[in-house]
């Protein structure tokens, strides 16, 4: 029973230290964020959406978000820089999913192209092997009153 106040004091110190770490870690990036930092991240985000678009992804909406950041960046106040950074982080996250969707769309397109070519090739083989028989059979049915003489 006599040890309890010491234990409580230790817990209080640990919690206070943890809180201090959390507060400092959340304040530090805000204080250090500069226009150049945001500009560098803007370039990184642009590279990400360019890659996603090259993979077949749809990035028009992401490009608009980046454009809004790029236009307001020169001389932006610190609070706007923080907002810009959070927009860029979100765009970076969405760019990877746009890239994945683009790759899937490209694969689907190739499957459609392959299937179309396979069907046309199969038709070609069938025509080559049985086309004449079908054609003359149809011709004879259409002209059933005619007398045909094989020469």
């Amino acid at each position, binding site marked *: 029973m006599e040890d309890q106040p010491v234990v409580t004091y230790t817990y209080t110190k640990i919690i206070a230290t943890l809180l201090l770490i959390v507060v400092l870690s959340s304040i530090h990036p805000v204080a250090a964020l500069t226009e150049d930092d945001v500009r560098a991240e803007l*370039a990184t985000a*642009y*590279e990400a959406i360019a890659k996603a*678009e090259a993979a077949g992804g749809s990035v028009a909406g992401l490009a608009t978000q980046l*454009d809004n950041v790029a236009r307001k960046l020169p001389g932006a106040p610190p609070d706007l820089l923080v907002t810009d950074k959070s927009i860029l982080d979100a765009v970076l996250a969405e760019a990877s999913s746009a890239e994945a969707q683009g790759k899937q769309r490209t694969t689907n397109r190739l499957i459609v*192209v392959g299937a179309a070519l396979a069907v046309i090739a199969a038709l070609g083989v069938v025509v*080559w092997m049985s086309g004449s028989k079908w054609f003359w059979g149809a011709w004879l049915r259409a002209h059933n009153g005619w007398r045909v003489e094989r020469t």
Partner: protein
Amino acid sequence: MIDDDLKSVTLIILLALAVIAVYPILNEGRVVEPFSELGVLGANGKIGDYPRQLVSGQNFNLTLYVGNHEGRVEYYRVVAKLSDETSNVSDVSPLDAQVKASWETIISSGSNSTIPVRLSVGSAGLNRRLVFELWRYDVASHDFVYDERWTQLWYNVTATG
């Protein structure tokens, strides 16, 4: 003989069908002649109504127009440089002059962007020009490169009265 002709005609029709089916899918979004646009518009966003007689230190407004027909999203930087009649502006290399201001925009393929700008010029003189150059972010070099597009505005500057 007729059989062979029939086979040939049918195969040609099938080949044409294959090309018609596949070509649009493979060429989706492809731009045959990619290019970018740069233009300077008046303060009201239309061609004309450009300021020609400026007063030193006094602000004036313009609108920049950038168009993207490159077939992909582009990150552009428009750079304004002050110059005069003695300097040569080239389609190949950027003007060797101090950068007065710059603006950035990111444009999707097939879209354009207008940027309202506010500028002022310094010392008085005749036949001065404001050169606008278009730079484009190059993913390979991670830097902006001169896009070989530029435009200019001629003006005279009078000292503040």
